[in-house]
Protein backbone atom coordinates (compact mmCIF):
# COMPACT_ATOMS: atom_id res chain seq x y z
CA UNK A 1 0.00 0.00 0.00
CA UNK A 2 1.24 3.50 -0.83
CA UNK A 3 1.98 5.49 2.32
CA UNK A 4 2.92 8.75 0.65
CA UNK A 5 1.83 9.67 -2.82
CA UNK A 6 2.64 12.96 -4.54
CA UNK A 7 0.45 13.56 -7.60
CA UNK A 8 1.18 16.17 -10.31
CA UNK A 9 2.56 18.71 -7.87
CA UNK A 10 3.30 22.14 -9.36
CA UNK A 11 4.85 24.91 -7.29
CA UNK A 12 5.91 28.42 -8.24
CA UNK A 13 7.75 31.19 -6.42
CA UNK A 14 7.02 34.88 -6.81
CA UNK A 15 9.81 37.26 -5.85
CA UNK A 16 10.01 40.92 -6.78
CA UNK A 17 6.99 40.57 -9.05
CA UNK A 18 8.50 37.73 -11.10
CA UNK A 19 6.94 34.30 -10.98
CA UNK A 20 9.07 31.24 -11.63
CA UNK A 21 7.66 27.76 -11.75
CA UNK A 22 10.02 25.44 -9.87
CA UNK A 23 8.05 22.17 -9.84
CA UNK A 24 6.29 20.82 -12.92
CA UNK A 25 3.79 18.01 -12.29
CA UNK A 26 5.99 16.06 -9.91
CA UNK A 27 4.64 12.63 -9.00
CA UNK A 28 6.23 10.07 -6.74
CA UNK A 29 5.17 7.21 -4.48
CA UNK A 30 6.58 5.94 -1.22
CA UNK A 31 5.04 2.58 -0.32
CA UNK A 32 4.99 1.57 3.35
CA UNK A 33 8.27 0.07 4.61
CA UNK A 34 10.09 1.00 1.38
CA UNK A 35 13.30 2.89 0.82
CA UNK A 36 12.97 5.46 -1.92
CA UNK A 37 15.52 7.99 -3.13
CA UNK A 38 14.94 11.34 -4.78
CA UNK A 39 18.13 12.42 -6.52
CA UNK A 40 19.02 15.57 -8.38
CA UNK A 41 21.51 18.39 -8.63
CA UNK A 42 21.25 21.63 -6.65
CA UNK A 43 18.24 23.58 -7.87
CA UNK A 44 16.52 20.55 -9.34
CA UNK A 45 13.54 21.01 -7.01
CA UNK A 46 14.11 18.11 -4.63
CA UNK A 47 14.22 20.33 -1.53
CA UNK A 48 11.09 22.21 -2.61
CA UNK A 49 9.34 18.85 -3.06
CA UNK A 50 10.41 17.85 0.44
CA UNK A 51 9.28 21.15 1.94
CA UNK A 52 5.92 20.87 0.19
CA UNK A 53 5.44 17.39 1.65
CA UNK A 54 6.40 18.57 5.14
CA UNK A 55 4.32 21.74 4.84
CA UNK A 56 7.35 23.96 5.33
CA UNK A 57 6.99 26.15 2.24
CA UNK A 58 6.41 29.80 3.10
CA UNK A 59 3.39 30.97 1.15
CA UNK A 60 4.03 33.59 -0.17
CA UNK A 61 6.53 33.64 -1.88
CA UNK A 62 5.77 30.01 -2.73
CA UNK A 63 2.45 28.89 -4.22
CA UNK A 64 1.18 25.39 -4.78
CA UNK A 65 -0.57 25.70 -8.14
CA UNK A 66 -1.95 22.21 -8.49
CA UNK A 67 -1.53 18.63 -7.35
CA UNK A 68 -2.20 16.48 -4.32
CA UNK A 69 -0.05 14.97 -1.62
CA UNK A 70 -1.70 11.92 -0.09
CA UNK A 71 -0.55 10.56 3.21
CA UNK A 72 -2.27 7.29 4.09
CA UNK A 73 -5.06 8.16 1.64
CA UNK A 74 -5.70 11.69 2.98
CA UNK A 75 -4.74 14.78 0.96
CA UNK A 76 -2.35 16.83 3.09
CA UNK A 77 -3.04 19.95 1.03
CA UNK A 78 -6.78 20.04 1.70
CA UNK A 79 -6.99 18.64 5.23
CA UNK A 80 -7.61 21.06 8.15
CA UNK A 81 -4.36 22.73 9.32
CA UNK A 82 -4.73 21.27 12.81
CA UNK A 83 -4.86 17.74 11.40
CA UNK A 84 -1.82 18.42 9.28
CA UNK A 85 0.06 19.82 12.29
CA UNK A 86 -0.79 16.63 14.16
CA UNK A 87 0.86 14.53 11.45
CA UNK A 88 3.94 16.69 11.09
CA UNK A 89 6.85 15.54 13.20
CA UNK A 90 4.85 12.55 14.45
CA UNK A 91 3.56 10.26 11.70
CA UNK A 92 5.88 11.82 9.14
CA UNK A 93 9.14 13.12 10.40
CA UNK A 94 12.33 14.57 9.04
CA UNK A 95 16.06 14.10 9.50
CA UNK A 96 17.69 17.46 8.97
CA UNK A 97 20.75 17.89 6.86
CA UNK A 98 23.18 20.10 8.71
CA UNK A 99 24.19 18.92 12.17
CA UNK A 100 26.02 22.21 12.79
CA UNK A 101 23.05 24.52 12.33
CA UNK A 102 19.94 22.42 12.93
CA UNK A 103 20.31 22.32 16.72
CA UNK A 104 19.67 25.38 18.84
CA UNK A 105 23.02 26.41 20.36
CA UNK A 106 21.62 27.76 23.63
CA UNK A 107 19.54 24.80 24.84
CA UNK A 108 20.67 21.35 25.91
CA UNK A 109 19.93 18.35 23.69
CA UNK A 110 17.56 16.99 26.33
CA UNK A 111 15.70 20.29 26.51
CA UNK A 112 15.26 20.47 22.71
CA UNK A 113 14.15 16.86 22.27
CA UNK A 114 11.93 17.14 25.35
CA UNK A 115 10.21 20.25 24.00
CA UNK A 116 9.51 18.58 20.66
CA UNK A 117 8.16 15.51 22.45
CA UNK A 118 6.00 17.61 24.75
CA UNK A 119 4.14 19.30 21.89
CA UNK A 120 3.95 16.08 19.86
CA UNK A 121 2.34 14.41 22.88
CA UNK A 122 -0.07 17.30 23.23
CA UNK A 123 -1.17 17.11 19.57
CA UNK A 124 -1.70 13.39 19.82
CA UNK A 125 -3.49 13.60 23.15
CA UNK A 126 -0.87 11.43 24.85
CA UNK A 127 -0.26 11.78 28.56
CA UNK A 128 3.39 11.81 29.56
CA UNK A 129 5.04 13.67 32.42
CA UNK A 130 8.42 15.33 32.56
CA UNK A 131 10.08 12.17 33.85
CA UNK A 132 8.39 10.13 31.13
CA UNK A 133 9.68 12.51 28.49
CA UNK A 134 13.19 12.36 29.89
CA UNK A 135 13.09 8.57 29.81
CA UNK A 136 11.85 8.56 26.21
CA UNK A 137 14.59 11.02 25.14
CA UNK A 138 17.25 8.82 26.73
CA UNK A 139 15.72 5.76 25.08
CA UNK A 140 15.82 7.32 21.61
CA UNK A 141 19.36 8.60 22.14
CA UNK A 142 20.36 5.05 23.03
CA UNK A 143 18.71 3.81 19.83
CA UNK A 144 21.00 6.05 17.77
CA UNK A 145 23.90 4.36 19.58
CA UNK A 146 24.88 7.06 22.02
CA UNK A 147 26.89 5.36 24.70
CA UNK A 148 25.90 7.76 27.47
CA UNK A 149 22.43 9.01 26.57
CA UNK A 150 21.93 10.82 29.89
CA UNK A 151 25.16 12.77 29.49
CA UNK A 152 24.35 13.64 25.86
CA UNK A 153 20.91 14.88 26.94
CA UNK A 154 22.59 17.25 29.38
CA UNK A 155 25.04 18.59 26.81
CA UNK A 156 24.86 21.64 24.60
CA UNK A 157 25.28 21.07 20.84
CA UNK A 158 28.72 22.70 20.86
CA UNK A 159 29.94 20.05 23.28
CA UNK A 160 29.23 17.25 20.79
CA UNK A 161 31.05 16.20 17.63
CA UNK A 162 29.46 16.58 14.19
CA UNK A 163 28.68 12.87 13.97
CA UNK A 164 27.03 12.91 17.40
CA UNK A 165 24.95 15.91 16.47
CA UNK A 166 23.80 14.19 13.29
CA UNK A 167 22.75 11.21 15.37
CA UNK A 168 20.85 13.58 17.66
CA UNK A 169 19.01 14.82 14.55
CA UNK A 170 18.08 11.23 13.73
CA UNK A 171 16.92 10.71 17.33
CA UNK A 172 14.82 13.86 16.97
CA UNK A 173 13.06 12.35 13.97
CA UNK A 174 12.40 9.07 15.80
CA UNK A 175 10.97 10.62 19.00
CA UNK A 176 7.32 10.11 18.15
CA UNK A 177 7.64 6.78 16.36
CA UNK A 178 6.93 7.96 12.82
CA UNK A 179 5.95 5.65 9.95
CA UNK A 180 7.59 7.83 7.29
CA UNK A 181 11.05 9.32 7.57
CA UNK A 182 12.19 11.99 5.14
CA UNK A 183 15.97 12.41 5.20
CA UNK A 184 17.47 15.52 3.65
CA UNK A 185 21.01 14.48 2.66
CA UNK A 186 22.01 13.53 6.20
CA UNK A 187 25.73 13.66 6.77
CA UNK A 188 26.73 15.74 3.74
CA UNK A 189 28.31 18.19 6.17
CA UNK A 190 30.45 15.45 7.72
CA UNK A 191 33.57 13.64 6.61
CA UNK A 192 32.97 10.58 4.43
CA UNK A 193 33.75 8.00 7.11
CA UNK A 194 31.30 9.52 9.56
CA UNK A 195 28.74 9.98 6.80
CA UNK A 196 28.99 6.28 5.95
CA UNK A 197 28.38 5.41 9.61
CA UNK A 198 25.40 7.73 9.76
CA UNK A 199 23.84 6.21 6.64
CA UNK A 200 24.43 2.72 7.98
CA UNK A 201 22.77 3.66 11.27
CA UNK A 202 19.83 5.23 9.47
CA UNK A 203 19.38 2.19 7.25
CA UNK A 204 19.57 -0.19 10.22
CA UNK A 205 16.98 1.82 12.15
CA UNK A 206 14.64 2.08 9.18
CA UNK A 207 14.82 -1.68 8.63
CA UNK A 208 14.53 -2.58 12.30
CA UNK A 209 11.46 -0.40 12.77
CA UNK A 210 9.88 -1.10 9.37
CA UNK A 211 9.77 2.58 8.47
CA UNK A 212 9.32 4.07 5.04
CA UNK A 213 12.29 6.21 4.03
CA UNK A 214 12.41 8.99 1.46
CA UNK A 215 16.09 9.86 1.01
CA UNK A 216 16.73 13.20 -0.66
CA UNK A 217 20.24 13.51 -2.00
CA UNK A 218 22.51 14.64 -4.81
CA UNK A 219 24.86 11.74 -4.21
CA UNK A 220 24.35 8.64 -6.36
CA UNK A 221 26.57 6.66 -4.00
CA UNK A 222 24.05 7.36 -1.24
CA UNK A 223 21.22 6.35 -3.58
CA UNK A 224 22.85 3.01 -4.24
CA UNK A 225 23.46 2.35 -0.54
CA UNK A 226 20.11 3.34 0.86
CA UNK A 227 17.32 2.84 -1.65
CA UNK A 228 15.54 0.24 -3.71
CA UNK A 229 13.73 2.65 -6.03
CA UNK A 230 14.89 6.02 -7.41
CA UNK A 231 13.31 9.16 -8.81
CA UNK A 232 15.65 11.45 -10.74
CA UNK A 233 14.77 15.14 -10.77
CA UNK A 234 16.04 17.75 -13.18
CA UNK A 235 14.84 21.33 -13.60
CA UNK A 236 11.71 20.77 -11.55
CA UNK A 237 10.60 17.59 -13.29
CA UNK A 238 10.91 13.92 -12.51
CA UNK A 239 12.84 12.82 -15.59
CA UNK A 240 13.28 9.16 -14.76
CA UNK A 241 12.20 6.58 -12.21
CA UNK A 242 13.34 3.01 -11.85
CA UNK A 243 14.34 0.36 -9.34
CA UNK A 244 17.83 1.32 -8.14
CA UNK A 245 19.62 -1.66 -9.66
CA UNK A 246 18.07 -1.13 -13.05
CA UNK A 247 18.74 2.61 -13.01
CA UNK A 248 22.45 2.03 -12.55
CA UNK A 249 22.53 -0.86 -15.02
CA UNK A 250 20.49 0.71 -17.77
CA UNK A 251 19.75 4.43 -17.37
CA UNK A 252 17.12 5.48 -19.89
CA UNK A 253 17.58 9.24 -19.92
CA UNK A 254 20.64 11.14 -21.12
CA UNK A 255 20.56 13.27 -17.96
CA UNK A 256 20.70 10.18 -15.75
CA UNK A 257 23.59 8.81 -17.81
CA UNK A 258 25.41 12.11 -17.32
CA UNK A 259 24.81 11.96 -13.58
CA UNK A 260 26.14 8.42 -13.37
CA UNK A 261 29.11 9.31 -15.52
CA UNK A 262 29.95 12.17 -13.19
CA UNK A 263 30.48 9.83 -10.24
CA UNK A 264 34.23 9.49 -9.77
CA UNK A 265 35.32 5.86 -9.97
CA UNK A 266 38.45 4.10 -8.86
CA UNK A 267 38.03 0.90 -10.87
CA UNK A 268 36.56 -0.22 -14.17
CA UNK A 269 36.94 1.19 -17.64
CA UNK A 270 37.59 4.88 -18.28
CA UNK A 271 34.67 7.11 -19.20
CA UNK A 272 33.48 6.76 -22.73
CA UNK A 273 34.03 9.89 -24.77
CA UNK A 274 30.34 10.37 -25.40
CA UNK A 275 29.09 10.32 -21.79
CA UNK A 276 32.14 12.11 -20.37
CA UNK A 277 31.87 14.98 -22.83
CA UNK A 278 28.15 15.25 -22.37
CA UNK A 279 28.55 15.55 -18.62
CA UNK A 280 31.11 18.29 -18.96
CA UNK A 281 29.16 20.29 -21.53
CA UNK A 282 25.95 19.94 -19.58
CA UNK A 283 27.80 21.68 -16.76
CA UNK A 284 25.02 20.80 -14.35
CA UNK A 285 26.17 17.51 -12.95
CA UNK A 286 27.20 17.65 -9.29
Amino acid sequence: MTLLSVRDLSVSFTTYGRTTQVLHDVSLDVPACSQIALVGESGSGKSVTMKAIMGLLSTPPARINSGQIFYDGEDLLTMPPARRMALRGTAMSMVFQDPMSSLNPVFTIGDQLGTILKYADRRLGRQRGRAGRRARVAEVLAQVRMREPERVAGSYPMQLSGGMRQRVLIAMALLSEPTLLIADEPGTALDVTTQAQILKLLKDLVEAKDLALLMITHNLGVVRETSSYVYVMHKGRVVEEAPTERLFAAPAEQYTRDLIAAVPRLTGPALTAATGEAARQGGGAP
Partner: protein
Amino acid sequence: MEYLVFLVRRLLWSLLVLFGLSVVIFVIARGMPGDPARMALGPTASADQVAQLRETMGLDLPLVTQYVRYLGGLAQGDLGRSLLTGRSVSADISDTFAATFELVLATILIAFVVGLPLGVMAAQWKDRWPDNSIRLFALLSAVTPTFLLALLLQILAGYVLHVLPTTGRLPIGAGFSADITGLVTVDALLKGNWAILGEGLRHLILPAFALAAASVGQVALTTRASMIDVTSQDYVEAARAFGVPERVRVLKYMLRPALVAPMTILGLSFASLIGNAFVVELIFAWPGMASYGVRTILQKDLNAVMGVVMVSGAFFVMVNLAIDVATGLIDPRVRLGGRS
Protein backbone atom coordinates in the same frame (compact mmCIF):
# COMPACT_ATOMS: atom_id res chain seq x y z
CA MET B 1 35.01 25.55 35.67
CA GLU B 2 35.84 27.28 32.39
CA TYR B 3 33.09 29.72 33.28
CA LEU B 4 34.75 30.48 36.62
CA VAL B 5 38.07 31.19 34.90
CA PHE B 6 36.23 33.45 32.47
CA LEU B 7 34.63 35.39 35.33
CA VAL B 8 37.86 35.75 37.29
CA ARG B 9 39.64 36.99 34.18
CA ARG B 10 36.89 39.54 33.54
CA LEU B 11 37.12 40.69 37.17
CA LEU B 12 40.89 41.19 36.93
CA TRP B 13 40.47 43.15 33.70
CA SER B 14 37.90 45.34 35.43
CA LEU B 15 40.35 46.15 38.22
CA LEU B 16 43.00 47.02 35.64
CA VAL B 17 40.57 49.34 33.88
CA LEU B 18 39.75 51.08 37.15
CA PHE B 19 43.46 51.48 37.93
CA GLY B 20 44.00 53.07 34.51
CA LEU B 21 41.03 55.35 35.09
CA SER B 22 42.48 56.48 38.43
CA VAL B 23 45.80 57.43 36.74
CA VAL B 24 44.08 59.37 33.97
CA ILE B 25 41.71 61.25 36.21
CA PHE B 26 44.51 62.07 38.67
CA VAL B 27 46.77 63.47 35.95
CA ILE B 28 43.92 65.55 34.51
CA ALA B 29 42.94 66.89 37.90
CA ARG B 30 46.48 67.89 38.86
CA GLY B 31 47.40 69.09 35.40
CA MET B 32 44.52 71.51 35.12
CA PRO B 33 45.41 75.20 35.38
CA GLY B 34 44.31 76.91 38.57
CA ASP B 35 45.23 76.27 42.19
CA PRO B 36 42.60 74.27 44.08
CA ALA B 37 43.68 75.80 47.37
CA ARG B 38 43.36 79.34 46.01
CA MET B 39 39.96 78.49 44.54
CA ALA B 40 38.76 77.07 47.82
CA LEU B 41 39.81 80.07 49.85
CA GLY B 42 38.71 82.75 47.41
CA PRO B 43 40.52 85.82 46.05
CA THR B 44 40.75 87.61 49.42
CA ALA B 45 42.84 84.98 51.21
CA SER B 46 46.48 85.76 51.90
CA ALA B 47 49.37 83.87 50.28
CA ASP B 48 50.25 82.37 53.67
CA GLN B 49 46.76 80.94 54.10
CA VAL B 50 46.87 79.44 50.61
CA ALA B 51 50.31 77.90 51.26
CA GLN B 52 49.00 76.44 54.51
CA LEU B 53 45.99 74.84 52.82
CA ARG B 54 48.23 73.48 50.05
CA GLU B 55 50.29 71.78 52.73
CA THR B 56 47.22 70.33 54.47
CA MET B 57 45.91 69.03 51.16
CA GLY B 58 49.30 67.57 50.30
CA LEU B 59 49.55 69.67 47.14
CA ASP B 60 53.16 70.64 47.91
CA LEU B 61 54.37 67.02 47.67
CA PRO B 62 55.80 65.47 44.46
CA LEU B 63 53.11 64.29 42.03
CA VAL B 64 53.98 60.59 42.38
CA THR B 65 53.77 60.77 46.18
CA GLN B 66 50.44 62.54 45.87
CA TYR B 67 49.19 59.79 43.57
CA VAL B 68 50.33 57.00 45.91
CA ARG B 69 48.58 58.74 48.80
CA TYR B 70 45.47 59.11 46.66
CA LEU B 71 45.54 55.45 45.70
CA GLY B 72 46.03 54.43 49.35
CA GLY B 73 42.99 56.49 50.30
CA LEU B 74 41.01 54.99 47.44
CA ALA B 75 41.75 51.47 48.60
CA GLN B 76 40.24 52.36 51.98
CA GLY B 77 37.27 54.10 50.42
CA ASP B 78 38.64 57.53 51.32
CA LEU B 79 38.16 59.96 48.45
CA GLY B 80 39.36 63.04 50.30
CA ARG B 81 37.42 66.08 51.47
CA SER B 82 35.01 68.08 49.36
CA LEU B 83 35.71 71.81 49.21
CA LEU B 84 32.08 72.44 48.27
CA THR B 85 30.35 70.74 51.17
CA GLY B 86 33.25 70.47 53.60
CA ARG B 87 32.36 66.81 54.19
CA SER B 88 34.20 63.72 53.09
CA VAL B 89 33.56 62.97 49.41
CA SER B 90 32.69 59.34 50.11
CA ALA B 91 29.95 60.44 52.51
CA ASP B 92 28.57 62.87 49.91
CA ILE B 93 28.60 60.20 47.21
CA SER B 94 27.06 57.51 49.35
CA ASP B 95 24.23 59.94 50.17
CA THR B 96 23.54 60.64 46.52
CA PHE B 97 24.51 57.42 44.76
CA ALA B 98 21.38 55.49 45.74
CA ALA B 99 19.13 58.00 43.95
CA THR B 100 21.19 57.68 40.78
CA PHE B 101 21.28 53.91 41.11
CA GLU B 102 17.49 53.79 41.42
CA LEU B 103 17.10 55.99 38.34
CA VAL B 104 19.55 53.96 36.26
CA LEU B 105 18.01 50.66 37.39
CA ALA B 106 14.56 51.86 36.35
CA THR B 107 16.03 53.01 33.05
CA ILE B 108 17.57 49.62 32.28
CA LEU B 109 14.32 47.93 33.27
CA ILE B 110 12.33 50.17 30.92
CA ALA B 111 14.85 49.69 28.12
CA PHE B 112 14.26 45.94 28.24
CA VAL B 113 10.59 45.79 29.16
CA VAL B 114 9.68 48.21 26.37
CA GLY B 115 12.51 47.70 23.89
CA LEU B 116 12.53 43.89 23.74
CA PRO B 117 8.84 43.34 22.88
CA LEU B 118 9.03 46.14 20.30
CA GLY B 119 12.05 44.47 18.68
CA VAL B 120 10.38 41.06 18.71
CA MET B 121 7.18 42.46 17.19
CA ALA B 122 9.08 44.34 14.51
CA ALA B 123 10.94 41.16 13.54
CA GLN B 124 7.71 39.15 13.47
CA TRP B 125 6.02 41.61 11.12
CA LYS B 126 9.14 42.47 9.17
CA ASP B 127 8.61 45.10 6.45
CA ARG B 128 4.92 45.48 7.25
CA TRP B 129 3.30 48.41 9.00
CA PRO B 130 3.95 47.35 12.63
CA ASP B 131 7.63 46.96 11.77
CA ASN B 132 7.80 50.27 9.95
CA SER B 133 6.13 52.20 12.75
CA ILE B 134 8.27 50.54 15.43
CA ARG B 135 11.43 51.32 13.48
CA LEU B 136 10.40 54.94 13.06
CA PHE B 137 9.58 55.20 16.76
CA ALA B 138 12.84 53.49 17.77
CA LEU B 139 14.91 55.71 15.52
CA LEU B 140 13.24 58.86 16.82
CA SER B 141 13.68 57.85 20.45
CA ALA B 142 17.31 56.93 19.82
CA VAL B 143 18.18 60.27 18.20
CA THR B 144 16.13 62.71 20.31
CA PRO B 145 18.54 64.51 22.65
CA THR B 146 17.86 63.49 26.24
CA PHE B 147 17.69 67.07 27.54
CA LEU B 148 15.06 67.95 24.93
CA LEU B 149 12.96 64.91 25.72
CA ALA B 150 13.28 65.55 29.47
CA LEU B 151 12.02 69.11 29.05
CA LEU B 152 9.19 68.05 26.72
CA LEU B 153 8.03 65.33 29.11
CA GLN B 154 8.21 67.71 32.03
CA ILE B 155 6.15 70.36 30.27
CA LEU B 156 3.62 67.89 28.89
CA ALA B 157 3.03 65.70 31.92
CA GLY B 158 3.64 68.26 34.62
CA TYR B 159 2.36 71.60 33.38
CA VAL B 160 -0.13 70.74 30.63
CA LEU B 161 -1.74 67.53 31.82
CA HIS B 162 -0.91 67.81 35.54
CA VAL B 163 -0.67 64.04 35.87
CA LEU B 164 2.82 63.44 37.22
CA PRO B 165 5.19 65.23 39.60
CA THR B 166 8.14 66.86 37.86
CA THR B 167 10.78 67.20 40.56
CA GLY B 168 12.43 65.18 43.32
CA ARG B 169 12.06 61.60 44.48
CA LEU B 170 9.12 62.11 46.86
CA PRO B 171 6.75 64.96 47.76
CA ILE B 172 8.32 67.50 50.11
CA GLY B 173 7.67 66.52 53.71
CA ALA B 174 6.84 62.90 52.90
CA GLY B 175 8.91 61.95 55.93
CA PHE B 176 10.15 58.67 54.51
CA SER B 177 13.75 57.63 54.86
CA ALA B 178 15.07 54.96 52.57
CA ASP B 179 17.44 53.47 55.08
CA ILE B 180 17.53 49.82 54.01
CA THR B 181 18.80 49.87 50.42
CA GLY B 182 18.62 53.60 49.77
CA LEU B 183 16.17 52.98 46.92
CA VAL B 184 12.85 54.65 47.76
CA THR B 185 10.68 52.21 45.81
CA VAL B 186 12.46 49.09 47.05
CA ASP B 187 12.48 50.26 50.67
CA ALA B 188 8.80 51.21 50.51
CA LEU B 189 8.08 47.74 49.16
CA LEU B 190 10.13 46.09 51.92
CA LYS B 191 8.37 48.15 54.60
CA GLY B 192 4.98 47.54 53.00
CA ASN B 193 4.37 51.29 52.70
CA TRP B 194 2.13 51.33 49.61
CA ALA B 195 1.44 55.07 49.61
CA ILE B 196 5.14 55.88 49.48
CA LEU B 197 5.73 53.15 46.88
CA GLY B 198 3.11 54.77 44.66
CA GLU B 199 4.56 58.23 45.16
CA GLY B 200 8.09 56.98 44.53
CA LEU B 201 7.02 55.34 41.29
CA ARG B 202 5.10 58.44 40.18
CA HIS B 203 8.20 60.56 40.73
CA LEU B 204 10.39 58.01 38.97
CA ILE B 205 8.37 57.70 35.76
CA LEU B 206 9.28 60.94 33.98
CA PRO B 207 13.05 61.03 34.60
CA ALA B 208 13.37 57.28 33.97
CA PHE B 209 11.51 57.44 30.65
CA ALA B 210 13.46 60.54 29.57
CA LEU B 211 16.70 58.71 30.31
CA ALA B 212 15.52 55.38 28.87
CA ALA B 213 14.25 56.62 25.51
CA ALA B 214 17.59 56.31 23.70
CA SER B 215 18.21 52.85 25.14
CA VAL B 216 14.67 51.70 24.28
CA GLY B 217 15.34 52.61 20.66
CA GLN B 218 18.71 50.89 20.66
CA VAL B 219 17.44 47.73 22.33
CA ALA B 220 14.43 47.54 19.98
CA LEU B 221 16.54 47.93 16.83
CA THR B 222 19.23 45.49 17.97
CA THR B 223 16.66 42.92 19.08
CA ARG B 224 14.88 43.24 15.75
CA ALA B 225 18.09 42.72 13.78
CA SER B 226 19.21 39.74 15.80
CA MET B 227 15.73 38.14 15.80
CA ILE B 228 15.64 38.42 12.01
CA ASP B 229 19.09 36.89 11.88
CA VAL B 230 17.94 33.96 14.02
CA THR B 231 14.70 33.47 12.01
CA SER B 232 16.61 32.14 9.03
CA GLN B 233 18.56 29.62 11.14
CA ASP B 234 18.00 25.93 10.41
CA TYR B 235 17.15 25.18 14.04
CA VAL B 236 14.12 27.45 13.87
CA GLU B 237 12.92 25.64 10.74
CA ALA B 238 13.61 22.31 12.44
CA ALA B 239 11.45 23.33 15.40
CA ARG B 240 8.70 24.25 12.93
CA ALA B 241 9.03 20.93 11.09
CA PHE B 242 8.56 19.09 14.39
CA GLY B 243 5.44 21.03 15.20
CA VAL B 244 6.71 23.24 18.04
CA PRO B 245 4.06 26.01 18.27
CA GLU B 246 4.98 29.45 16.96
CA ARG B 247 4.69 31.11 20.38
CA VAL B 248 7.29 28.73 21.82
CA ARG B 249 9.49 29.03 18.75
CA VAL B 250 9.58 32.82 18.94
CA LEU B 251 9.78 33.31 22.69
CA LYS B 252 12.07 30.39 23.48
CA TYR B 253 14.01 29.17 20.47
CA MET B 254 14.54 32.57 18.87
CA LEU B 255 14.49 35.16 21.64
CA ARG B 256 17.09 33.52 23.86
CA PRO B 257 19.89 33.30 21.29
CA ALA B 258 18.88 36.78 20.12
CA LEU B 259 19.18 38.30 23.63
CA VAL B 260 22.96 38.57 23.77
CA ALA B 261 23.25 41.39 21.22
CA PRO B 262 20.88 43.91 22.87
CA MET B 263 22.38 43.16 26.29
CA THR B 264 25.90 43.81 25.03
CA ILE B 265 24.79 47.02 23.31
CA LEU B 266 23.17 48.24 26.52
CA GLY B 267 26.37 47.55 28.47
CA LEU B 268 28.44 49.51 25.99
CA SER B 269 26.04 52.45 25.88
CA PHE B 270 25.94 52.55 29.66
CA ALA B 271 28.64 55.26 29.70
CA SER B 272 26.48 57.65 27.70
CA LEU B 273 23.59 56.70 29.96
CA ILE B 274 25.53 57.98 32.98
CA GLY B 275 26.43 61.11 31.03
CA ASN B 276 22.78 61.71 30.20
CA ALA B 277 21.82 61.05 33.82
CA PHE B 278 23.70 64.27 34.73
CA VAL B 279 21.30 66.25 32.54
CA VAL B 280 18.16 64.39 33.59
CA GLU B 281 18.93 64.74 37.30
CA LEU B 282 19.45 68.49 36.93
CA ILE B 283 16.19 68.96 34.99
CA PHE B 284 14.09 66.87 37.37
CA ALA B 285 15.92 68.06 40.52
CA TRP B 286 16.74 64.42 41.24
CA PRO B 287 19.04 64.38 44.28
CA GLY B 288 21.55 61.96 42.74
CA MET B 289 25.27 61.66 42.31
CA ALA B 290 25.13 63.14 38.85
CA SER B 291 23.72 66.47 39.96
CA TYR B 292 26.26 66.45 42.80
CA GLY B 293 28.93 65.85 40.16
CA VAL B 294 27.77 68.81 38.07
CA ARG B 295 27.85 71.15 41.04
CA THR B 296 31.36 70.02 42.02
CA ILE B 297 32.61 70.42 38.43
CA LEU B 298 31.28 73.97 38.30
CA GLN B 299 32.99 74.73 41.63
CA LYS B 300 36.21 73.00 40.50
CA ASP B 301 35.96 70.85 43.62
CA LEU B 302 38.65 68.45 42.39
CA ASN B 303 38.48 65.74 45.07
CA ALA B 304 34.75 65.45 44.57
CA VAL B 305 35.04 65.42 40.77
CA MET B 306 37.65 62.66 40.93
CA GLY B 307 35.46 60.74 43.36
CA VAL B 308 32.40 61.00 41.12
CA VAL B 309 34.39 59.89 38.08
CA MET B 310 35.88 56.93 39.93
CA VAL B 311 32.50 55.82 41.27
CA SER B 312 30.88 56.24 37.84
CA GLY B 313 33.72 54.23 36.32
CA ALA B 314 33.33 51.48 38.90
CA PHE B 315 29.57 51.52 38.27
CA PHE B 316 30.15 51.15 34.53
CA VAL B 317 32.58 48.28 35.05
CA MET B 318 30.26 46.50 37.50
CA VAL B 319 27.27 46.80 35.15
CA ASN B 320 29.28 45.36 32.29
CA LEU B 321 30.54 42.56 34.51
CA ALA B 322 26.94 41.81 35.50
CA ILE B 323 25.98 41.76 31.81
CA ASP B 324 28.84 39.36 31.07
CA VAL B 325 27.62 37.05 33.81
CA ALA B 326 24.05 37.27 32.50
CA THR B 327 25.02 36.59 28.87
CA GLY B 328 27.08 33.63 30.08
CA LEU B 329 23.98 32.22 31.77
CA ILE B 330 21.80 32.86 28.73
CA ASP B 331 24.18 31.61 26.07
CA PRO B 332 26.41 28.62 26.84
CA ARG B 333 28.69 29.57 23.95
CA VAL B 334 29.86 32.59 25.98
CA ARG B 335 30.30 30.45 29.09
CA LEU B 336 31.98 27.43 27.56
CA GLY B 337 34.37 29.31 25.30
CA GLY B 338 34.39 29.61 21.53
CA ARG B 339 34.76 25.93 20.65
CA SER B 340 32.38 24.90 17.91
